């Protein structure tokens, strides 16, 4: 039984459930290695100076997180004279459905990387399970073609955590998508807030 099920079993009262959910989320956030956050910030700031792209990708809720990251890093930082060139390759329905229909869903990211990625770009895969074949394929391609790869993961990190060059891991119980994706979104806002201020 995962932790959220336990919390619900302890209390079906929404107020108490909320309080315990927040407490659990807090404990998850405290378990994140802040050195991994620091390294990710270092990579993003380096990419800004060098003009490298930062390419986010993910499936499902993590696709939305990828879009949100691209928005907050590229536009939320308000640094248009020297921007963070962040994009998300989760946002073009025509491309995604074309590639999925013609060549398979496991190719939706790798084919986009073949088109937009160059050596030295940062490729960020977001996945709670770390087991999505389309992300792992894309990261292997990015590694082989000299991109800098980052995995934002949860649960035990899956294969993705061990495939990327830099891991930003949120340790949670297996299958707890909600708190894992909450934490990923907090990392987005945390990094956006930090980068906006540090580049002033």
């Amino acid at each position, binding site marked *: 039984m995962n932790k959220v099920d336990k919390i619900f079993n302890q209390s079906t009262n929404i107020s108490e459930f909320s309080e315990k959910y927040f407490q659990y989320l807090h404990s998850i956030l405290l378990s994140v290695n802040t*050195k*991994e956050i*620091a*390294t990710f*910030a*270092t*990579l993003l*700031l*380096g*990419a800004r*100076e*060098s003009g*490298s792209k930062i390419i986010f990708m993910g499936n499902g809720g993590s696709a939305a997180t990828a879009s949100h990251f691209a928005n907050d890093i590229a536009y939320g930082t308000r640094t248009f004279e020297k921007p963070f060139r962040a994009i998300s390759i989760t946002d073009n329905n025509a491309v995604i459905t074309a590639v999925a229909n013609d060549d398979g869903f496991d190719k939706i990211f790798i084919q986009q990387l073949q088109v937009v990625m160059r*050596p*030295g770009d940062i490729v960020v895969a977001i996945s709670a399970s770390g087991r999505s074949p389309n992300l792992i394929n894309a990261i292997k391609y990015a590694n082989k*073609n*000299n*991109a*800098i790869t980052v995995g934002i993961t949860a649960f035990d990190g899956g294969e993705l955590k061990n495939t990327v*060059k*830099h*891991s930003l891991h949120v340790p949670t119980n297996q299958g707890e998508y909600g708190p894992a994706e909450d934490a990923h979104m907090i990392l987005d806002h945390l990094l956006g807030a930090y980068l906006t201020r*540090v*580049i002033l």
Partner: protein
Amino acid sequence: MLSGKVALVTGGTRGIGKAIALELQNKGASVIITGTKSIFESTEGYQYIGVDFSNREATMEFANKVKNIKPDILINNAGINKIGAFAEISLEDFDQIQQVNQYAPFILSQAVIPGMKEKKWGRIVNISSIWGKISKEYRASYSVSKFALDGMTSALSAEVAQYGILANCVSPGFIDTELTRSILGDDGIDRVVSQVPAKRLGGVDEIAKFVAWLSSVENTYITGQNIAIDGGFTRV
């Protein structure tokens, strides 16, 4: 060995710097290199930043960026040389050599230390030269800069070792680079090689492998040193 680390290598587009960048990347680090060109396409996947270290203002501006970037490893490799008779060295040339070889490493070391202190880990390797251990005629400007680098490294290491930051100099001898070959020519190389106990030029990979090790988590206690990689040249 360097997984999860970010390294900054100055002068990383060619020669020894290029080999160091590649070795650091092969060991798992992500690498930012600098060069003097405004645009440089790196198929190896380094992030490239153009900066002219002979310009103090540009160096300071770059250092401010480095303060934010907070690399884990700094390799001060960029350097210039101009050979000339002592009495004829212009102050302008002398200043320029000190600016690139001595002031830029000093300014960049200052810039990375706060980030390294935060992380309680950092490695700084200053690429010096055998002419920073011994000297010879016509090398005054260069030797001044490289002896200074040794002194700076020694003082710096004493100050920051307690924070997990290790700083060393590596002093290459005669290394087989395009620059060496173009300066010395075939006859010059034969003459030099005859004076080296190893009876050959060094390879850039021989420098790079040691610098990468010195920059890694495997180096835990070597700091403040100036290690020559010169086939024994400075010891005979």
